[in-house]
């Protein structure tokens, strides 16, 4: 290791990592991915130039979405390759050390945390379920039905229709939120753990209808078919919600409860 290079950490696993497990993937700097072991744990790392991945460079590169996309996809690809091989804890993007010795220090110092997280995720896989509701369409349908009897042509009728539109929208939003709650509770029954996250903005998701559930679930591998069936059944059961299943994911969302305390 020279002063020009750092060590990017992708994931930590409790198993030995044979070369063939990561021979198909290259790292964020197109480097060969390798293993650093200490305290019975293995960190999956790559040597990266600090010119691109040092403090100053990262600061500006992270603002460049094109760079970020490539690095994020590559990081995820390496983590996925490791998880295919053995249970592993994904590290958040851009965890960089100055040399292998510093990585070993962390493996030793945080051993208990890594062990606890590995116990949680072993034999389990993360799945994402998003539910969308076209609240406007539902509300418009309700107004059509309810407002057809009202006489047209008077200001009162206009105000009544307007009021009906507003309350129909509120009703539709409430109904969609209730169904999202029910759906989340149902999916939790088929998973070992789950949590709801803030909805993604339409700009990022590329959709116009409202995301009412952004759930992520840690599912026993033995029950993954059961979970997928539950999602499939929910597509019919929850009329008016459009469901999107993503995954399998490495257990990013269940990697550690103490993420606020580095």
């Amino acid at each position, binding site marked *: 290791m020279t002063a020009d290079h750092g060590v990017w950490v992708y994931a930590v696993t409790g198993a030995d990592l044979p070369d063939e497990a990561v021979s198909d993937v290259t790292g964020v700097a197109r480097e060969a991915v390798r293993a650093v072991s200490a305290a019975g744990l293995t960190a999956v790392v790559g040597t990266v130039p600090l010119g691109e991945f040092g403090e100053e460079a990262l600061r500006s590169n992270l*603002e460049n979405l*094109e760079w970020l996309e490539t690095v994020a*996809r590559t990081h*995820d690809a390496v983590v996925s390759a490791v998880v295919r091989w053995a249970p592993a804890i994904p590290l958040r993007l851009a965890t960089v050390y100055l040399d292998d010795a510093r990585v070993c220090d962390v493996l030793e110092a*945080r051993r208990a945390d890594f062990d606890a997280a590995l116990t949680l995720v072993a034999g389990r896989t993360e799945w994402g379920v998003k539910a969308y509701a076209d609240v406007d369409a539902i509300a418009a349908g309700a107004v059509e039905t309810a407002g057809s009897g009202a006489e047209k042509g008077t200001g009162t009728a206009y105000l009544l229709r307007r009021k009906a539109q507003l309350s129909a929208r509120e009703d539709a939003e409430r109904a969609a939120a209730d169904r999202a709650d029910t759906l989340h509770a149902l999916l939790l029954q088929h998973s070992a753990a789950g949590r709801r996250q803030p909805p993604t*903005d339409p700009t*990022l998701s590329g959709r116009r209808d409202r995301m009412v559930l952004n759930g992520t679930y840690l599912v026993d591998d033995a029950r993954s078919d059961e979970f997928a069936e539950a999602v*499939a059944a929910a597509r019919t059961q929850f009329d008016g919600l459009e469901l999107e299943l993503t995954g399998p994911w490495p257990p990013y*969302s269940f990697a550690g409860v103490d993420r606020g305390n580095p």
Partner: protein
Amino acid sequence: MTVMGGGSSSPQPYGGGHQSTNLGDILERVLDKGLVIAGDIQVNLLDIELLTIKLRLVIASLETAKAVGIDWWETDPWLSSKGKRAEIEGAQQDLEVENRKLRDRIAELEAARREPVAEPVEVEDAEFEDDEVDDDR
């Protein structure tokens, strides 16, 4: 199993990293999730936190972010092309809806004027007619 658009390419296990996977889904996980441990390069905690906050601002409201001068995504083709398309579609729809509402309202107002029923608009007319009647005497 059905994997909808935006999902990873099933049935291959761990499709993560494939180009087909929605970038938003990946960023949501690699930036905001994953175990946080302090690296020697300290940028990882502080700046990703900032970046996440910026993403959240986009998520919360494009307008709010613009108002505080954060508009880095506007120069990015990935976000801006999608963003612009959604924005234009949204604006057109909103305009159409508003147009239709205005046309309805005008029709209603015109219909109301033709009817002799006492509505607030007609009050002045009624008084005016009374004045005319006085003049005629």
